[in-house]
């Protein structure tokens, strides 16, 4: 190609004019994000929600200022340096390979910004983490496809909405009975997954009364999109207490034992066969008949399961002993017939398992 080095282009007045315009636009966008009334669209229901919004304002303001400059220059250069009809067809641009000074600054400034951003986000994150630990301790449990709640001194799980008193710190322990769910309250800007076999904790203090959505954000099965619940933050302490005591009375006779976790040691001592019989009618008869082995519903008939010479082994191949039956009740089993849910899915505590095994042991062929 011919030697046709074009003259270097000076940073001219057009450039500075455009820079000025972009600077004005960038400032305008920063002001926009500072003034934008986020809480008008989504209430800030807890104290730290405001911090998250501040974080967002900061990032949105700096991000849009940066974006204004990049896209602004992109458009300006695209127009100013387009090949014109008057240019010869083989005209070339100014061959600038690099500019160490410029490159140094546009590496250093983002690096400094990253440092600043790190400091800000760590600070705000610690404010979220360091919410007070004392206060109301609630456990939220994800199920397919609803959330339920355990309150101190209330037996069993509350499957209605979650109520919280205004201004009192809350420690929310999240776990799941089946698959991973996401526990998200948009108005609180808080979320954590409910993971089976794991307890994760979030803490917050409600600062605004109202009714807010709890939404599942982690795909959990076919009805995931309908997995909603509500949380009601109540300003009036008396009406919260009323609701709380109402549940205490309503659930007074519900068993409060936690389901047996996998791996937890289970004592079969003191199994109550009579209680096991009641429990069997509640929990097992959907899939199992009290009839000989070959009378199936979903699973086999369980009459004489521990005393059947024709079937000395259980479905998992282990000998039919009380301990192994308890193992299946505790851990469940998946085989060709389908899935026998485990204790946490069936809501069986270790005492329940002992009772059931005692009951099954009484059944003779």
């Amino acid at each position, binding site marked *: 190609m011919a030697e046709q080095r074009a003259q270097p282009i000076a940073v001219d007045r057009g450039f500075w004019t455009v820079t000025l315009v972009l600077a004005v636009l960038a400032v305008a966008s920063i002001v926009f994000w500072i003034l934008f009334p986020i809480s008008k669209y989504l209430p800030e229901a807890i104290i730290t929600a405001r911090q998250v919004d501040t974080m967002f304002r900061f990032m949105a303001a700096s991000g849009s200022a940066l974006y204004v400059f990049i896209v602004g220059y992109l458009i300006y250069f695209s127009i100013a340096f387009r090949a014109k009809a008057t240019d010869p067809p083989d005209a070339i641009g100014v061959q600038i390979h690099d500019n160490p000074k410029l490159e140094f600054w546009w590496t250093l400034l983002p690096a400094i910004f990253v440092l600043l951003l790190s400091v800000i986000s760590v600070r705000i994150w610690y404010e979220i983490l360091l919410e007070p630990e004392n206060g109301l301790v609630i456990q939220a449990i994800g199920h397919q496809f609803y959330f339920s709640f355990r309150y101190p001194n209330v037996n069993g799980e509350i499957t209605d909405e979650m109520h919280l008193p205004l201004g009192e710190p809350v420690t929310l322990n999240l776990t799941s009975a089946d698959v991973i769910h996401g526990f998200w309250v948009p108005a609180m800007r808080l979320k954590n997954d409910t993971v089976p*076999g794991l307890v994760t904790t979030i803490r917050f203090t409600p600062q605004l009364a109202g009714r807010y959505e709890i939404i599942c954000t982690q795909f959990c099965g076919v009805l995931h999109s309908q997995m909603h619940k509500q949380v009601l933050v109540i300003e009036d302490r008396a009406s919260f207490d009323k609701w709380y005591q109402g549940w205490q009375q309503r659930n007074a006779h519900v068993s409060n034992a936690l389901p047996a976790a996998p*791996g937890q*040691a289970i004592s079969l001592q003191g199994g109550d066969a009579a209680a096991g019989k009641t429990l069997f009618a509640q929990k097992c008869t959907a899939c199992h008949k009290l009839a000989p082995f070959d009378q199936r519903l979903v699973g086999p008939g369980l009459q004489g399961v521990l005393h059947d010479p024709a079937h000395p082994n259980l479905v*998992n*191949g*282990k000998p039919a002993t009380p301990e192994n039956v308890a193992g299946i009740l505790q851990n469940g089993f998946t085989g060709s017939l389908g899935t026998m849910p485990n204790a946490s899915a069936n809501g069986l505590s270790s005492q329940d398992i002992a009772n059931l095994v005692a009951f099954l042991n009484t059944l003779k062929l």
Partner: protein
Amino acid sequence: MAVASLAPDAGEVDQLYIETRELRLQGFLFFLISDCVLFSSFIFAYLYMRNSGQGWPPPGVQRLDVAFAAWNSVVLFGSGATMHYALENFKYGHFMRYMWFLLATIVLGVMFLGGQAYEYNHLIFGEHVTWAGSGIFGASFFTLTGMHGFHVFIGVCYLTVLVLQSAAGVYTRGKYFGITAGTLYWHFVDVIWVVLFSIFYLL
């Protein structure tokens, strides 16, 4: 006849072979790296599960007895040493010694596989530890050692092919990348076993 083929090439530098060998060597090393990542992922999975939750070994599983595994490991490590000397002897033109070392490697490899089969037999039927039925212990132990055993099996097949090819005179003193690759692979399989032996039996 096979010995005759070990005579050096007729003085000429075969540029094409040199460059092709370079490519293959590089490619083979990269293959080993990605295979190593495969093992590392499962090892990570094992260590992660081991450290999350219920303590180790999980309820209902005995710790593994090291006695037989130590012997079996030494068998495999010994095969690494014989393979090393197989390659060395080939490089210096001692064809028959090379063949004997190669055969010894294969025998040791097969012995290791037999030992693994014995170990599996003992675990599954003696102690009722199975792949699917013994929780995360069975899952990680049988998956990792099974994967390794499969690699050893492939290696034994490869070395057998090497024996046949060498007998047919495929490799010469100037061109023996197949043997180098076999040695690399076999060493790799050995070294993976060092790690697996340590994390399953010693840790």
